[in-house]
């Protein structure tokens, strides 16, 4: 893998995380427990799609093959997407989607923070913009996690179950492969081991404040970063891509 190929692969991973999480979030539009949460959910999903668009456009420029942001989003097959498995997990109930977003964004904020200092100026600029949004999301989301954990017995049990269920998808975030290593070594990008420690510290704090139990160390799923996704991912992609695929060459 050349240096450029590694950068493109890395940028696409970032973009895919943002787009696929947004796609899951917009499935929830009109299903939120409060009108204020409709606004927050739409707002956060807009931030993610905005990030994905900047990143896909940059990947397209680096690749120089004439692809557009929409080609990346709508014309790649499922196994070409490189988002984390955590991101694509189905929405479940309100607590499940809060936990999914929290566990990811608690990682993403440190990933972006490191990227603001990386040697690729475009990535650093995009990260600097995204991190402001993600910090804001994290405040909102972690507050929900705390309210649910320390709310009623029912909410406590439900959100503990969400945490236990989704925990096995967190390991993948910290497993470095050749792309991560290339970004770290060539561009002074994130060191995943260091981020793992920061993530664990933050998550432990919030979980403690939420009066929840940290799940035990366990077997961790992986594959998303290499394009091996869950069964339900195919449906997400099919729904998202339907118009572009059905009317080849049309513009919208």
């Amino acid at each position, binding site marked *: 893998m050349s240096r450029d190929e590694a950068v493109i692969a890395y940028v696409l991973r970032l973009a895919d995380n943002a787009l696929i999480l947004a796609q899951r979030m917009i499935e929830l*539009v*009109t299903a939120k427990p409060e009108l204020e949460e*409709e*606004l927050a959910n739409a707002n956060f999903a807009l931030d993610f799609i905005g990030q994905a*668009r900047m990143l896909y456009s940059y990947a397209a420029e680096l690749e120089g093959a004439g692809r557009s942001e929409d080609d990346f989003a709508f014309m790649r097959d499922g196994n070409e997407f490189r988002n984390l498995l955590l991101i694509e997990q189905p929405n479940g109930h309100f607590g499940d989607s809060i936990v999914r977003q929290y566990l990811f964004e608690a990682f993403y904020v440190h990933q972006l923070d490191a990227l603001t200092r990386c040697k690729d100026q475009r990535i650093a600029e995009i990260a600097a913009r995204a991190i402001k949004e993600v910090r804001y999301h994290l405040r909102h989301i972690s507050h929900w996690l705390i309210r649910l954990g320390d709310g*009623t017995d029912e909410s406590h049990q439900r959100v503990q179950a969400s945490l236990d269920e989704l925990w096995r998808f967190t390991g993948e975030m910290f497993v470095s492969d050749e792309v991560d290593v290339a970004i770290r070594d060539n561009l002074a990008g994130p060191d995943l081991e260091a981020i793992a420690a920061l993530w664990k510290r933050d998550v432990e704090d919030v979980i403690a404040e939420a009066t929840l139990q940290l799940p035990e160390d366990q077997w961790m799923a992986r594959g998303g970063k290499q394009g091996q996704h869950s069964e339900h991912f195919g449906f997400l992609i099919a729904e998202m891509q339907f118009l572009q695929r059905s009317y080849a060459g049309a*513009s919208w």
Partner: protein
Amino acid sequence: MYTQGLDQAGKDQEAGAETPEHLEAFQKRIDAEEKIEAKDWMPEAYRRTLVRQISQHAHSEIIGMQPEGNWLTRAPSLKRKVILLAKVQDEAGHGLYLYSAAETLGVSRGQMVADLLSGKAKYSSIFNYPTLTWADIGAIGWLVDGAAIMNQIPLCRCSYGPYARAMVRVCKEESFHQRQGFDIMVSLCRGTAEQKAMAQDALNRWWWPSLMMFGPNDANSKHSAQSMAWKIKRFSNDELRQKFVDATVPQADFLGITMPDDALVFDKDSGHYSFGEIDWQEFMDVVAGNGPCNRQRLEKRNKAHNDGAWVREAAQAYAEKQAACAAA
């Protein structure tokens, strides 16, 4: 406004403080174009009319998120996805300001929402039609937001201050929605034959329901007179409908698609388009709950509300714990 033009004066209430002198002074303020504010004296019927109209409007914004939300996951480009999501988010925001405006009249959001969920409260029946293709998203922006603007611009001058001010903000966003919807139609009509057919099909299905958004003909809308006198309403249903037709037909011509109305013709003498008879039976059926999606829309709203009950309870319980800690 998405209130169907069904707004009508509330029942005459007990005389109370409503002496002829009070009523006359109130009407003088209205006639002088003074804004009535939440703390001002107002006749009970004025208050009730506004509560009904503003809450129906708020409910329409909320229910209206569903037909458009239906295409969010399938929007055909990232740009269109962002625009549609921002639009649906705006509608949620409109619902919030309108509930707040209604609350200034002494009714709680909880009560208004309960009336929506039980089916007691009305919302605009346009949202009981399904969005079957992507072109429907274009048609809704173009026609439904377009009709809403016709109704809402005069509401920016409504005699009730909080409603008028909410409408100023809402109208800016609605006109943005209308342009974005039209832009989708332009792309489709300049696209492939299949895309253009999709646009024509959407126009066929949305045109008549859009005309129904202005409510019954003036002859059958006897309660509008009081709303006009109170300057809640500034134009009659038929006047607004005519403005909408006159503005919209040339846009369809520009797109190269045709209204599904053989009787539609430009009348040189009046300078207006004359158009065919609306199917009022269909309108009454949909208002009565028998449109294609009435049940689905209310079921979805109820499901979201019920699924969220444990979340709202948790937030409440947490807030109480925090308050108890702070007090201790």
